């Protein structure tokens, strides 16, 4: 069987890719995708820990992961709505061009 440690490494790599995307990407939709990757990395952690260590004692990990799905979906729905309204008013979705507020 694949050891738990592999899953944790996978999730850490996924988290770092997401983090990198959030920091370097200029397109707001790409930033949202980076955030999704980070959330999915956390989900892999939750499920892997549950399956390997705590499957016999509780269901916390699975329930947590399910709730993360729902919250992430809601967040993306709101995010795309906001990005759409920015596109309507400014005709851009590039984070660098959203710079009227500064100081």
């Amino acid at each position: 069987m694949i050891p738990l440690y592999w899953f944790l490494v996978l999730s850490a790599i996924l988290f770092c890719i997401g983090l990198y995307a959030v920091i370097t990407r200029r397109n707001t939709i790409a930033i949202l995708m980076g955030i999704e990757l980070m959330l999915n990395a956390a989900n892999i952690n939750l499920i892997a820990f549950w399956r390997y260590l705590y499957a016999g004692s509780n269901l916390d990990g699975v329930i947590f992961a399910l709730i993360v799905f729902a919250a992430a979906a809601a967040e993306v729905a709101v995010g795309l709505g906001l990005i759409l309204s920015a596109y309507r008013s400014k005709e851009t979705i590039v984070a660098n061009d959203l710079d009227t507020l500064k100081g």
Partner: protein
Amino acid sequence: MPAFTSDMLTSLIPETGLLVLATLLLVLVLVKNEKFYIHLDWITAAGFTLIAVLAFIFGRPAEEPRLLWGEMIRVDRAGYLLSLMVLVGGALTAVFAGTDVTVGKKPEFYLLLTLASIGLVLMGTSANLIMLYLAIETAAIPLYVLAGIKYRDAWSVESGIKYLLFGGFSSAIMLYGFSLLYGFAGTTKIYGMVDALRASGTPLAAIILAAIMVLAGFTFKISAIPFHFWAPDVYQGAPTPVAGFLSTVSKAAGFIALARILINALGVESGNVWMIILAVISAASMFIGNLLAIPQKNLKRMIAYSSIAQAGYILIGVASGSEFGFSAAIYYLVAYLVTNLAVFAIINWIEYETGSTEISTFAGLNRREPGLALLLMIALLSLGGIPPLAGFFAKVLVFGAAIQSGMVWLAILGIINSVIALYYYLRVMKVMYVDEPAGSIKVDKLPVVWTVALAVCIIGIVLLGVVYSPWYNFITLAAMGL
């Protein structure tokens, strides 16, 4: 399965009440009758007040804190106090929003305010990481929309997007921390996690890594270093009532949840490594907030930087790690709630009259509206920590807590920062009282409900500063039960 008891119902009075109010508002949204829309502000405020009264009378927690609803919710005084703060803050915000040109007549605004309040109340009572994450998201998602609710206004849309991206980013980091904590402890229950972590034999470095990720997520909620970038942009761009709500109620909920996690899941005590980490965050927040507030020309932006600094002061209390420190922090949160809501209410009114929130539009406010200028001065002096106002006593408490825990240097840094902060608050007062007004500005009559709500804030500021012992005693009990 444990039997269903009546205190399971009374523990959820604020949430249930807000849900009923939200349903009512949703029906009003669907009715699409403009006639109702002019009364929405006080309908919402009356709903919030009614729920607050019900929660105050029937929701009073028992002497001993208890875990209910499958150990998801903890009924204690801190959660009770936070639910009252959210309800009162929400009621005041609804009234103040009534004068806002764009959001005042929007039923969606009041609906989202109510939904966000449900999440914020739950943040204070969650005793489980799953529940806490859900509560944080329930509060955050409506707040993202609220920040960007003026969809024709470029500033508001931009602030909504920035708030969403920073919020999503920081909550993803926090969630990763939660997933590691679950992996190490084998449970998502916040109470008892310290022992579970110790018993698991996980290396301390791994626990600290997870804990720092959780802490990073919370610094976003309380707008402290290092996730403070969003605050100035969001406060300036978001509708003014939303900025007031974000800076007070949302911050208070973040602090209560943070204190709960720190004490029960991460084991903060006097004298351990947490004190240093929190003290550094606190000192950095105070300096960055105060120094960047000085050159600001927009009052909302200036108050945003001031709110970063205020998060730093409150963190002094949390960093002390003692019961005294936590009660000082909670006292500060209550004082900050009434003070900052008053400031944002007056900014909102000036914005309604002049269409601008630049500091220069406040020139000659004393000659136009002397009463309002006086009240804004009281609120700003309270933020600056001048006796006998609420901010002064709150600051004395947090500095005292730092000294008691042996962090005299942090108290000294706090005092230096209070002096810096006083400089830019006094600058606004100078503009109000000394500077010549730019031109003739029409002065509107203040609505009655609005005046009452502002009076509540100002009376709160004075009461919290003068007659402190009853509130302080209750808050001490709340902090002990965390």
